């Protein structure tokens, strides 16, 4: 009875504005069919990359010369390569490599870019000028060139590709976060928190970062697509994953030689790269529309 009285006096229970915003975002995202499909595929890729290698019966690196260049069949779903290795097994094992490169490089590059962007936007002045000029310099290397230059120095390996793609991703995050920070910094509640004596560290991480997280999430999702493309491009050029690693870009490069006699060698790895990139692009677009409905065009 007492509880009912309280409810009548206070009105129905209302969740916090943040939860309301989250619910509205979720509703918008779940209405976007393309984004739901993209998100489903991303989840599927993650599950396959974890569980898949345990479910395959063949070894991705085992050479079976007698089975070489077999076309797709009931035994070898995607055929075999010039060493007789099962392409389907290699594709499944390659999934974790592809996602690892995508997620890790964006996590590293994104974290550095976010820190640069927030510091630059929050402090302004000379710090801002220096950081943004450095970002301008990194952006002066078009497309894959910066990653290529870094790999040329460090040497070709998957680990170095992650470093190269991470560096390549930093400016994109720094620029976006800087501009969001600039607009948040001017809001009155930041002045209020400052007046209460909060430290810069607290203001940045407690009050600014949560408010610039939307563009970061969107950028990260779309950037994973770019990272996968760049990393597989480097492996395709022979500068990334080294044989016998079942990396899709490297597999595509190996398949080039047999284009005429065994086109399936280049068909499946390329198709998988395209599907993964497509899923992240679609999901990233959907996230952007859901997080900022004004952007939806």
């Amino acid at each position: 009875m007492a509880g009912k009285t309280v409810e009548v006096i206070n009105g129905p229970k209302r969740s916090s504005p943040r939860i309301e915003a989250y619910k509205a975002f979720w509703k918008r995202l779940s209405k976007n069919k393309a984004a739901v499909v993209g998100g489903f595929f991303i989840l599927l890729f993650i599950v396959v990359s974890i569980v898949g290698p345990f479910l395959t019966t063949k070894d991705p690196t085992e050479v079976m010369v007698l089975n070489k260049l077999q076309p797709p069949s009931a035994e070898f779903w995607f055929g075999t390569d010039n060493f007789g290795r099962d392409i389907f097994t290699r594709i499944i094992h390659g999934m974790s490599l592809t996602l690892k490169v995508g997620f890790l490089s964006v996590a590293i590059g994104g974290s550095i870019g976010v820190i640069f962007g927030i510091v630059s936007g929050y402090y302004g002045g000379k710090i801002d000028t220096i950081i943004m000029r450095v970002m301008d310099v990194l952006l002066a290397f078009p497309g894959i060139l910066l990653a290529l230059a870094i790999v040329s120095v460090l040497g070709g390996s998957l680990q170095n590709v992650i470093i190269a793609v991470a560096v390549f991703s930093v400016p994109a995050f720094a620029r976006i976060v800087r501009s969001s920070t600039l607009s948040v910094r001017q809001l009155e509640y930041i002045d209020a928190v400052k007046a209460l004596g909060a430290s810069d560290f607290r203001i940045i991480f407690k009050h600014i970062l949560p408010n610039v997280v939307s563009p970061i999430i969107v950028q990260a999702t779309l950037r994973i697509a770019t990272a996968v493309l760049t990393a597989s491009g480097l492996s395709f050029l022979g500068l990334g994953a080294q044989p016998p690693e079942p990396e899709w870009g490297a597999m595509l490069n190996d398949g080039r030689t047999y284009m005429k006699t065994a086109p399936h060698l280049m068909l499946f790895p390329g198709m998988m790269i395209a599907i993964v990139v497509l899923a992240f692009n679609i999901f990233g677009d959907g996230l952007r529309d859901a997080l900022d409905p004004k952007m939806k065009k």
Partner: protein
Amino acid sequence: MAKYIVRRLLQTIPVLIGVSILVFSLMHLIPGDAAQIMAGEAASEESVEQIREKLGLNKPKPVQYFNYVSNAIQGDLGNSIRSGRPVVDEIKGRFWVTAELAVYATILAVFLGLIAGIISAVRHYTWSDVSIMVVALFGLSMPNFWLGLLLIQWFAVGVDFLPIPDFLMMRPSGWGDSWRQILLPVITLGTSGAAIIARMTRASMLEVIDQDYIRTARAKGLSEKIVIYRHALKNALIPVVTVVGLEFGAFLGGAVITETIFAINGMGRLTIAAITERDFPVVQGTVLVISLLFVFVNMLVDISYRMLNKRIDLS
């Protein structure tokens, strides 16, 4: 306007200095002894020392940087470790091949992207809009190295439309003699750019179409064609100009892959060969030239952006 151009030129200077420092640092960031790596593991101490001497690696780093920049300004980017020829000579013939490839890809991307973007915006939320945007999303997501191989498979291997030996015959001089030779590399390179421009044009057009002056133009009784092509398009194209500039740069970088697939003797293929052979003066030279070209094109784009949209104060 002149004031803006001068200011924009001055803004470019720190970027150029930064690019030169980064390119110079490439050789010094190599883990281990750069001279030993370039000479090869089996090289004698004498030949390693010779390379060190030749590249001036035994001098203090600021002196090396100063020498590198002052030589580069005079058109000397050092000599190739492998061929012994000046890097500038190695690049010279190939520069135009890559530039030509990037220009053609830009033309294709702008042409296809604008048409697709405009149709999509004018018929927004219809099936043609959805279809164009789905195709654009595929174009954006398709790895260009896979697209190139598929094109070869379909048009060269499959139907013999373009025999493969033609690719191998492409040379720096007159590689674009035949449209059949340039078509596939240009499609390979330009597709993702066309997709980006289409998406950008559509978004920009839709934003403009929503504005009051377009509503006024319609209210005046102007035909839809005049409203779209004379009033909306002009303003919608302004942000697209920036994307075109960025895409040209991306094509310069992306040429590395396209040239490798089609065995075109451009700067991209030279870069890959130099990386494989650990010929760092050539790597530095090609990376420097492509970046400088990109910075220069971006500056031109910014200036044209300003000229197209005089209402914007870019200060």
